[in-house]
C-alpha cells in the first residue's frame, strides 16, 4: 500500500495539470447534477409541507354560498378536528396597470391571526387595516412584478376600484398562480361591503384527524351538500408540486445525460492519461513495480483527484437546487441552501463508482502492457488497421492525414465522440422539447380552454339576451355554454365540465375516439391513466344523488387537474332526468381580433352585472423548462467540448514529434491546422451520426413523459426531425473542427526543432 501511495503521488506530481483539472471538472459537474436533481423534489415537498404546517395543516378548503351551508357541511364529518374561521368573499378580477385582470376570490379578513386553520401567510408588507387596502397573492404579485405599495385595480361587475397593495400573502386553498386560478386576495370586511358584491360566498379551511383520507371526506361532503366546493390538500399539494416535479424530472433526466457524458469523459481521460504515460509505466516496471501496483496507483490517483471534486459538486448542486424549485420561488422566495450529507454519500458512490469503472480497464491494461512494446510505443493494432484503410481513401493529403490523426487512437476518439454525441443529443432533445412544450403551453385549446372570453350573467333568465348580444357582435366567431362542477367517481371528486353539445364552436381538441353524444362523455388523459380506463369503457359516477352509466366516447386534451377531468354533454344528464344549467358562455373571438376590444363591446350591450372575463394567457408557459434545458445543455456541451479539447490536445501532444517531422517534411502551420481541423471534424461527424438519432429517441420519450405528467397524453406533440438535424449536424462538425484546431494551435507556435526534440 505504501508503495502504491508513493507511486500515486509521484504520478500526480508528474502528471499534466490539464488532465487533472479536466478530471476534477467532470467529477464536479456530475456530482452537482446528481445532487441538484435529487434535491429539487425533496426540497420543494418539504417547503410546501412547512407552509402547510405553519398555517395549521388545512386539509380541506370549503366554499359554500353562505356560513350556514359551510358549517352544516363540515359539522357532520367525524374526521374533522378543527375548523378555521370562515370568511366571506366575492369573485372579482384584479389587475396592475397595463396588464390583464386575473380572476380573484377576494376575502374579507380583518385579523389573520384570528383565522385559525388555513390562515394566510404574510410574505411581505403588512395586513390590511384601512379602506381601499388589499393584500394580494404573493404568486400573482411575483408573476406581475407587483410590490408592496403598488396600486392595483379591483374590478367587480364591470366597475373598477383602485386599491393599494399593502402586503403579499399565500394561502393553501389552491395551487399557486399561474397554475391555478382564481388567486386569493384579502381586504377588510368594510372594504368588501363597500364594493357591493351581488354574490357573497363563505370559504374556510378545516383540519382532519391524522391518517384521514382527505379526498374521500371531500367527496362525501360534496356528494351530500349540493352547491358546495371542497378542495383537498392531497390534490392541492400534487398541483403545487407539479412544476417542481417537471423541473426535477428534467434535471434528473438530463442529469443522467450528464452522468453518462461524464462517464465517457472520465473513461477517455483515463485512457488518455494511461496511454500518454505508457512509457513511464514501462520504465517503472523495469525498475521493479508490479502490474498490480501500477493499476492500483492509477485508480487511487483518480479517486484522490475526484473525491474533493465530488464534494465541491455537492456544495454547488445544493446551491443550484433552490433555483430549480421553479413553481415555488415566486410565491415563497428562494429556499435556503441545504447541505444534505446523504446526498453527498449518494454522489460519492455514483461518481466514484463510474470513475472506478472507467479507470479500471485502462489501468489494468497499463499494468499488463508488455514492457518492450510499451517502450517502443507503437500504435495500437486496431489503430494500425484503420490507418491502412484510411490510406486507401481518396482526397487531399491533409484530409487523409487529418482523418488519420483523428483515428490514431480509435478507442479514445470513440469515447470523445460519444461524449460529444451525448451533447448533440441533449441539444437536439432540448430544441425539440422547448419548441413542442412552447406549442402546447401556448395553445389554450390543448390546455382545455378553447375560448377567449367567458361571460357569466347575473341570472339565468338573462340567457336569451346574452345569446342575442353575441349574435350581433361581429368580433365573435362562436360560443358554447358550460358549467364547471364535479362528479363522484371511485370515491373521488372529479372535475367535470358539462357542455352544451352541438355547439358551433370547434372547441376542445379531440385526441382519440369521437365527440360525446348523449349518454356519453369524454375524458382527458389523466383520468384514463389514474383510473385505468380506455375509450369505449362504460363508467359509473354519482351526481346529485344519482348514479349515471356513461360511455367514454373519446379522449380530449385538457391539462386542468393534471387531466383528471371529464367532459359531459348536458344531454347525458338530461337523459338521466337531471337538469343542469349552464351559466358560463365560452366565447371564441375571430382571428386577429383583440379579445379586450370584444370585451369592451360586450360589456356595453350585455345586461347589467354580467361578468365578462378574458382568458389569461398562461404565463407559466415553458419558460422554466427552457431555462433548465439551456443550463443543462450548456453544461453537457461544455463537458463534451472540454473533453474533446483535452483528448485532442493529448493526441497532439503525444504526436509532437510527428508534428515536428511533418514540418521538417515541409508542411506549413496552415496545413497542420487544417489536419487538426479535419481530425476534429471527423469526431464531430461521428458524434452527429450517433447523437442526432439518439436525440430523436430521447426527445420522444421525454415528451411522452411530460405529456403524461401534465395529463394531456399522446397525440399532440410530434418531434421535428429534419430542421434540427440540419442545424445541429453542421454545428457538431464545426465544434469538432474548432476544438481540433484549438488543440493543435499551441504546437504551431513551438519551433519545429523543439517539437523534434520532444518525445
Amino acid at each position: 500500500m505504501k508503495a502504491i501511495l508513493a507511486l500515486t503521488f509521484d504520478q500526480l506530481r508528474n502528471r499534466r495539470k490539464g488532465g487533472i483539472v479536466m478530471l476534477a471538472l467532470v467529477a464536479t459537474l456530475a456530482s452537482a447534477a446528481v445532487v441538484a436533481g435529487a434535491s429539487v423534489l425533496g426540497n420543494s415537498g418539504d417547503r410546501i409541507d412547512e407552509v402547510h404546517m405553519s398555517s395549521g395543516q388545512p386539509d380541506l378548503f370549503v366554499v359554500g354560498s353562505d356560513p350556514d351551508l359551510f358549517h352544516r357541511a363540515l359539522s357532520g364529518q367525524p374526521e374533522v378536528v378543527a375548523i378555521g374561521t370562515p370568511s366571506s368573499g366575492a369573485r372579482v378580477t384584479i389587475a396592475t396597470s397595463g396588464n390583464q385582470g386575473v380572476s380573484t376570490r377576494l376575502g374579507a379578513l380583518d385579523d389573520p391571526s384570528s383565522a385559525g386553520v388555513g390562515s394566510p401567510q404574510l410574505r411581505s408588507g403588512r395586513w390590511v387595516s384601512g379602506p381601499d387596502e388589499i393584500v394580494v397573492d404573493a404568486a400573482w404579485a411575483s408573476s406581475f412584478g407587483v410590490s408592496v405599495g403598488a396600486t392595483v385595480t379591483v374590478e367587480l361587475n364591470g366597475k373598477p376600484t383602485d386599491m393599494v397593495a399593502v402586503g403579499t400573502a399565500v394561502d393553501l386553498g389552491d395551487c399557486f398562480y399561474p397554475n391555478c386560478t382564481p388567486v386569493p386576495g384579502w381586504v377588510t370586511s368594510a372594504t368588501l361591503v363597500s364594493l357591493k358584491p351581488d354574490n357573497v360566498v363563505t370559504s374556510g379551511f378545516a383540519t382532519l384527524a391524522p391518517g384521514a383520507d382527505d379526498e374521500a371526506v371531500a367527496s362525501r361532503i360534496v356528494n351530500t351538500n349540493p352547491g358546495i366546493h371542497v378542495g383537498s390538500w392531497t390534490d392541492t399539494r400534487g398541483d403545487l408540486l407539479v412544476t417542481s416535479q417537471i423541473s426535477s424530472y428534467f434535471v434528473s433526466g438530463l442529469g443522467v445525460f450528464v452522468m453518462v457524458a461524464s462517464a465517457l469523459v472520465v473513461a477517455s481521460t483515463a485512457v488518455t492519461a494511461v496511454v500518454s504515460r505508457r512509457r513511464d509505466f514501462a520504465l517503472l516496471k523495469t525498475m521493479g513495480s508490479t502490474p498490480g501496483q501500477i493499476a492500483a496507483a492509477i485508480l487511487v490517483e483518480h479517486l484522490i483527484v475526484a473525491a474533493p471534486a465530488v464534494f465541491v459538486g455537492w456544495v454547488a448542486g445544493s446551491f443550484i437546487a433552490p433555483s430549480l424549485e421553479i413553481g415555488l420561488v415566486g410565491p415563497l422566495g428562494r429556499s435556503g441552501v441545504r447541505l444534505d450529507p446523504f446526498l453527498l454519500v449518494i454522489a460519492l458512490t455514483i461518481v466514484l463508482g463510474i470513475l472506478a469503472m472507467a479507470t479500471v480497464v485502462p489501468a489494468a491494461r497499463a499494468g499488463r502492457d508488455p514492457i518492450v512494446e510499451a517502450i517502443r510505443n507503437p500504435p495500437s493494432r486496431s489503430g494500425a488497421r484503420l490507418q491502412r484503410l484510411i490510406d486507401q481513401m481518396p482526397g487531399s493529403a491533409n484530409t487523409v492525414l487529418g482523418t488519420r490523426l483523428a483515428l490514431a487512437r480509435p478507442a479514445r476518439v470513440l469515447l470523445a465522440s460519444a461524449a460529444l454525441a451525448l451533447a448533440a443529443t441533449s441539444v437536439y432533445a432540448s430544441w425539440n422539447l422547448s419548441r413542442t412544450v412552447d406549442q402546447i403551453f401556448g395553445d389554450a385549446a390543448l390546455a382545455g380552454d378553447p375560448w377567449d372570453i367567458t361571460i357569466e350573467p347575473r341570472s339565468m333568465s338573462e340567457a336569451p339576451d346574452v345569446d342575442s348580444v353575441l349574435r350581433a357582435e361581429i368580433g365573435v366567431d362562436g360560443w358554447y355554454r358550460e358549467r364547471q362542477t364535479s362528479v363522484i367517481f371511485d370515491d373521488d371528486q372529479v372535475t367535470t365540465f358539462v357542455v352544451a353539445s352541438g355547439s358551433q364552436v370547434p372547441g376542445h381538441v379531440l385526441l382519440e375516439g369521437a365527440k360525446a353524444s348523449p349518454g356519453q362523455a369524454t375524458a382527458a388523459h389523466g383520468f384514463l391513466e389514474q383510473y385505468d380506463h380506455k375509450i369505449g369503457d362504460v363508467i359509473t359516477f354519482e351526481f346529485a344523488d344519482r348514479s349515471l352509466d356513461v360511455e367514454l366516447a373519446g379522449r380530449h386534451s385538457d391539462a386542468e387537474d393534471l387531466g383528471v377531468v371529464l367532459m359531459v354533454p348536458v344531454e347525458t344528464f338530461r337523459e338521466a332526468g337531471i337538469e343542469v344549467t349552464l351559466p358560463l358562455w365560452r366565447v371564441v373571438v375571430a382571428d386577429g381580433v383583440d379579445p379586450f376590444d370584444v370585451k369592451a363591446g360586450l360589456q356595453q350591450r350585455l345586461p347589467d352585472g354580467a361578468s365578462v372575463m378574458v382568458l389569461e394567457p398562461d404565463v407559466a408557459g415553458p419558460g422554466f423548462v427552457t431555462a433548465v434545458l439551456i443550463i443543462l445543455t450548456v453544461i453537457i456541451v461544455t463537458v463534451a467540448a472540454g473533453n474533446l479539447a483535452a483528448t485532442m490536445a493529448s493526441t497532439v501532444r503525444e504526436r509532437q514529434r510527428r508534428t515536428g517531422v511533418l514540418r521538417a517534411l515541409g508542411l506549413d502551420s496552415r496545413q497542420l491546422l487544417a489536419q487538426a481541423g479535419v481530425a476534429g471534424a471527423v469526431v464531430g461527424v461521428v458524434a452527429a451520426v450517433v447523437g442526432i438519432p439518439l436525440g430523436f429517441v430521447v426527445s420522444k420519450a421525454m415528451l411522452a413523459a411530460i405529456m403524461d405528467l401534465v395529463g394531456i397524453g399522446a397525440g399532440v406533440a410530434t418531434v421535428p426531425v429534419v430542421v434540427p438535424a440540419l442545424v445541429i449536424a453542421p454545428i457538431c462538425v464545426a465544434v469538432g473542427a474548432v476544438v481540433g484546431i484549438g488543440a493543435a494551435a499551441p504546437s504551431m507556435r513551438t519551433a519545429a526543432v523543439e517539437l523534434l526534440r520532444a518525445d
Partner: protein
Amino acid sequence: MTTPIVIAHDVHRCVDTGTRRIEILRGLDLVIEEGEWVAIMGASGSGKSTLLHLLGGLDLPDSGSITVAGRRLDQASEAERARIRRSDIGYVFQSYNLLTELTAVGNVALPLRISGVGRKAALARARTLLAELGLTDQADGSVAELSGGEQQRVALARAVATGPALLLADEPTGALDTEAGAAVMRQLAARNDAGQTIAMVTHDHRVAAQADRILVVSDGRFVEEHSLLETRSPDFTNLVSLDGV
C-alpha cells in the same frame, strides 16, 4: 561557375535556458557548392545539430544570413520556409523519425503527397525509390517492424523523394552498427554520385572520410577544414583527436 547551394554568412545562434545563455554559433560562415558532399564534425554540444536545423529552415539564426538554393531562409516567413523545406530540402535524422502508423511506402510517398502529387503517382515513385534502396520486400510492412538500418534507408528514401536540392543528414549512421551504417553510406554515396548535394553531421571519421570536405565546428565556428585530399594526409590523425575535445 554555378551558384552555391548553401551560403551561410556570420551566423549567430544563442539559446536561453532560463538559468544560462549559451552562444552555440558565433559568426559561422559556410559555402556548399552544388553536388558537393560535406561532412560536419565537432565535439558533442558544439552546435552541429543546431547548424543543420538552421540549414533545414527548422530554426532561425539570431543574426547572419542563410541562403539555400537561392532563397534567404533567415528572411522567409514560416510558411515560406515550409515551402522551401517541401521542395528544396530533404532531412535524415539520427533516430529515423518515421511515422510508425504508416507503411514504408506510405512514409516515402508522404512528402510527395504533401507537395500535391496524386496518390497513385506518389506511391509508384515511392516504390521505385524503395526498390533502389533494396527495400522492395519491406515496402508494404509497418515501419515499426523494420530494423534500424532498414528504417534509416526508408528515411533516406523519404528525404530524397521530392528531389531536393540539399540533403541534410544528422548522424545518419549514429544509431546503426557498422554493417547497417555502411549500407546507408553506400546509398548516400550513390545519391552524391548522381549529383545530390549533401551536408552530413557525423562523429565517425571513417564516415566523414567519404565526404568531399570535412568541416570541424568549435567555439561556434568552423575551425578546420579538410579537403578530400587532406583527409587522407597524415594531418588526419590530429582531426581524430578533436573528437575528444
